[in-house]
């Protein structure tokens, strides 16, 4: 039987506060990314287990069906699912007890309104090992080739865009700044607008924001952010029920997409939102939501 190894390394943001985790087989012939990187770091623990079963649990995208990141779980829960055949977990990495309290050992399978359902398929009938994990070797896993889906060429400007997004988060997370995730509502809204500005620059070109259309688009996004905060706050503090929340969210999303469709040419709309202006994305049906989640 092969060996499954839990690996971990500090995340770049908020280093020393939470670790990323991933799983590899003992000889490094195969690793599963668990929503993040799958090279480097340090081994945490290992145990014998079927690598073939681990691979089936991981699924081709290597996320072990933790479908919505930070909703069903994080990398810790994805890694734990893949480690099930070895009977070990990533217990002990930084941030683990927090994520475990929030999402459980193997993630939360239930979603909302049919979104983010994350069943844990254990594949208990599978045994044996992947050919690439069967060879005796040793040491840390070698760099893995990217999966086919990930190996598609990056669109031009992607690296620069991601770098700017990371810089924005890093600035917000600078010492004394409280972190991007500790911002008050007004700061958080401004932060989201800056992120959207970067996305606009990337998708529509840096010059677009200087045009009247660009200014109108940013104004629409700012308006959305302000109204979204009101809707979410009311729901968070139970001032509104689930039906009102979904209806209000739907209205906000449709309104923003309608405004964007008025501002942008169709190809610009598709480039920015990756959707068709004729079929706006909405959250769900309030009536279905009331039936499905009467206690929410």
């Amino acid at each position: 039987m092969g060996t499954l190894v839990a690996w971990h390394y500090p995340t770049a943001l908020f280093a020393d506060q939470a670790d990323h985790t991933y799983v590899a087989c003992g000889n490094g012939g195969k690793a599963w990314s668990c929503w993040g990187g799958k090279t480097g770091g340090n081994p945490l623990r290992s145990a014998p287990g079927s690598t073939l079963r681990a691979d089936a649990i991981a699924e081709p995208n290597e996320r072990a069906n933790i479908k919505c990141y930070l909703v069903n779980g994080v990398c810790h829960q994805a890694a734990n699912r893949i480690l099930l055949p070895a009977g070990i977990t990533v217990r002990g990495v930084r941030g683990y007890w927090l994520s475990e309290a929030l999402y459980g050992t193997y993630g939360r399978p239930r979603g909302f309104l049919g979104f983010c359902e994350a069943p844990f398929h254990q594949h208990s009938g599978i045994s044996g090992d992947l050919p690439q994990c069967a060879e005796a070797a040793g040491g840390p896993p070698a760099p893995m080739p990217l999966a086919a889906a990930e190996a598609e060429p990056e669109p031009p400007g992607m690296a620069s865009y991601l770098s700017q997004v990371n810089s924005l988060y890093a600035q917000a997370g600078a010492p004394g700044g409280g972190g991007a995730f500790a911002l008050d509502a007004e700061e958080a809204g401004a932060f989201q607008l800056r992120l959207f500005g970067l996305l606009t620059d990337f998708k529509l070109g840096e010059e677009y924001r200087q045009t009247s259309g660009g200014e109108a688009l940013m104004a629409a996004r700012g308006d959305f952010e302000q109204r979204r905060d009101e809707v979410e706050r009311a729901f968070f503090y139970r001032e509104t029920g689930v039906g009102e929340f979904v209806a209000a969210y739907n209205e906000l999303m449709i309104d923003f997409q309608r405004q964007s469709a008025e501002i942008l040419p169709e190809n610009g709309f598709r480039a920015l939102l990756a959707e068709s202006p004729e079929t706006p994305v909405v959250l769900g049906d309030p009536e279905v939501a009331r039936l499905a989640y009467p206690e929410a």
Partner: protein
Amino acid sequence: MSADRPPDSPRPDLGHGPRLTDEEYDRRVVGLHEGRPPMPSREEDRALRRAELELAIDHRLGRDFPAARRERLWQVLEQVERRRLRLVGRYLLGRLFTREKGPAKSANRLAGWMVDHFADVLDPRELESFFELGGAEPRLPVDVEAPPEED
């Protein structure tokens, strides 16, 4: 977090009786889930979450930790689960507008809310033993794309 306590090292005595060892905790938590259906019913899911909490308390606080305080922690987690479901909206919006991986701000806010409410039930030593935050803000791993540069 666990920075000050290497994995598998002893824990301080909190006066709530013996605790599950790390290895015993692993065995029990894995056994709790092994063979379960992929999507449990709502009641099964609730029972599983409660059993997980009981194991976590036995492991990090002590097996004699009072039942009334266990119940109060459970009530916090029940609220956490309801609030977690509301993250779905933020997830969808994030995908639409920013291509973010997940609703990081809201999830971290929820994590902070959970720790704050656990602190209403646990004293500081108990809270540290349960979460191992080491004085740091509660943070989830939200930036997991690549390992940091080697020194």
